[in-house]
């Protein structure tokens, strides 16, 4: 009767399985890197909505004049370069499409190139956001961006977690077996 038992490890098979697992994880990382901007764009939506909800809306149409060179024109004689309708600031918030942000998204107010034209209808130019948010020497601050960041952060984190979970579940289904 045998009084011993021989145990062996099939190292080659084990190595093969580890290699396959590493390869799958590398694929997961690669796919996640490609998908992360979409995930963040989806997650940032509550923050954009919170900023839009808090943005003050004016009641008057405002005109902007070019920076004066050699003195300001007399009242009523200046040539306006831009017209701002109420709601311009509110409508300007979005997830900005910035090329330099490769692995992140930036939520903020849109600025118009050149800053000439009519804004607040279909085009937006919120160059004065900092003046509203932080105030100036003469005008009190009307902070709404920082409160929006505080209030919307839990919803953003929830969305990031949800989107990541959906992504990994989909990946697991596609790579099962």
């Amino acid at each position: 009767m045998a009084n011993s038992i021989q145990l062996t490890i099939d190292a080659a098979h084990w190595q093969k399985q580890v290699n396959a697992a590493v390869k799958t994880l590398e694929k997961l990382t690669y796919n996640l890197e490609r998908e992360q901007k979409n995930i963040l764009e989806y997650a940032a939506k509550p923050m954009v909505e919170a900023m839009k909800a808090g943005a003050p809306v004016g009641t008057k149409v405002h005109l902007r004049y070019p920076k004066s060179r050699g003195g300001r024109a007399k009242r009523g004689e200046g040539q306006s370069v831009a017209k701002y309708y109420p709601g311009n600031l509110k409508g300007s918030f979005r997830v900005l499409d910035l090329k330099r942000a490769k692995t992140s998204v930036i939520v903020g107010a849109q600025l118009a190139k050149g800053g000439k034209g009519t804004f607040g209808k279909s085009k937006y130019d919120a160059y004065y956001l900092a003046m509203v948010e932080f105030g100036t020497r003469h005008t009190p601050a009307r902070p709404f961006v920082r409160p929006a960041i505080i209030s919307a952060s839990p919803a953003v984190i929830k969305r990031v977690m949800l989107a990541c979970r959906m992504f990994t579940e989909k990946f697991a289904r596609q790579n099962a077996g």
Partner: protein
Amino acid sequence: MANISGIIYTILAADARVAGLVGNDTGGGYRIYPISIPQKAAFPAVRITTVAVEPSDTKTEASTLDAIRVQIDSYAFSMLTAQQLDEAVRLAIDRYRGSVTVAGTGGATYFVDGVRFESRNETMETEKDIFRISTDYQVRIHRTP
């Protein structure tokens, strides 16, 4: 709600460095203002603005301890003075903890649970070359005197 600007004013006015830098207003107080700086005020000056209030509600009652985000602007005609004032403000209130009796409120005393520096932002007001440093603090405060 706790008189947050009154509390900050009291702490800053009691600090010799801040009081020495801002100096007196024509009304007799220090040049530390809530919300906006008067049109003809001299500089250096400090402005206090409440940014956001985060309550800490419990299951059974309303929040007794609020975390208030406050923006404190230090204005001056030179960047150096603005920086000195901002640093003096920070030295006076960062990590502050204790009771504060606000002047002009009939002796209302609040307990400040803690003050924490959050962020700093330097800008310049182009109109008259006035420098400004905006610093955010989180002030944890008991709501009732």
